[in-house]
């Protein structure tokens, strides 16, 4: 059971409990603000006062990040004998049309996330731009999936609903309009 993929009705409530425990510890569930803390640690305060913050006050969240790295290691190496993700047949067919032959056979597409894939400069560009959009977008929107979709909506915040609608506008444009231009079989 533990070694199989966990069903949504187990995982979703567990995520909510993690959020509630962080609130009960006097903190909040938000992963993207750590990106700004990394900027501060890297000396970004020299460029703008925005990054001149006391890293000590953010340390708790960096520990959550450290834990999630450990959790990723344990999940991948101890708890998942079979990493293949059982996505729907329809999805597999669509991805094969885009050149993703690893669809249905791996946890992440080997076409983007294997060491071999890094031989292609296009993959570097794709991953860096994707990351840039994640970093810039979450900070502009003031949160990501954890801060808006889970924490904000749990607190019935209308701004978080607007942000989540934005997440879907962006995601749908990327997958339906831009993927066919970026990837090809």
């Amino acid at each position, binding site marked *: 059971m533990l070694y199989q993929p966990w069903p949504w009705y187990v995982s979703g409530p567990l995520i909510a409990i993690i959020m509630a425990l962080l609130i009960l510890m006097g903190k909040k569930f938000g992963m993207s603000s750590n990106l700004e803390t990394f900027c501060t640690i890297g000396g970004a305060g020299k460029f703008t006062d925005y990054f001149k913050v006391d890293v000590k006050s953010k340390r708790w969240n960096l520990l959550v*990040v450290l834990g999630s790295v450990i959790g990723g290691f344990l999940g991948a190496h101890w708890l998942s004998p079979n990493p293949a993700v059982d996505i729907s047949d329809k999805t597999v067919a669509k991805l094969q049309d885009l050149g993703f032959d690893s669809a249905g056979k791996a946890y992440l*597409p080997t076409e983007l*996330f294997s060491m071999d894939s890094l031989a292609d400069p296009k993959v570097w560009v794709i991953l860096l731009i994707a990351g840039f959009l*994640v970093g810039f977008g979450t900070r502009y929107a*003031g949160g*990501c999936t954890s801060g808006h979709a889970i924490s904000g909506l749990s607190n019935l915040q209308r701004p978080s609903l607007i*942000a989540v609608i934005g997440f879907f506008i962006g995601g749908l444009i990327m997958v339906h309009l831009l993927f066919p231009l970026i990837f090809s079989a």
Partner: protein
Amino acid sequence: MKNIMYIILGTFLGIVLYKSEAASWFRIYEMFQFDSFHMYGIIGSALAVGVVLVFWIKKSKVKSFSGEIISIPDKEKTFTRYILGGTLFGLGWALAGACPGPIYILVGAGYWPIILVLMGAVLGAFVYGIVRSKLPY
């Protein structure tokens, strides 16, 4: 002691998101294709439980574990930053197949190219900090 709790909670989060496959690029693509209920089930059931827990925390005025008053601040009530920032993030979320939490988790899982996504994300946050005063909110 508190520090260890943060690490344990993070570890638990990492395992849950990895094992639920919410950290899989394929699941994010499938979600945006509306081909499976899986991701909607995760987010929806997290919200169903989350709304009740947050309501209880606010209503009962329960104190934090260390005895402080808990305040959950409202989000600033504007529109532009949420819709524009959200859309930019959505573009990146679908392309990288990972939001910030799973980025850290996939580093731990050993998918090294995700480090490029992480570097891009830190750069994106940095550029936001530089240009933020010129953006509409």
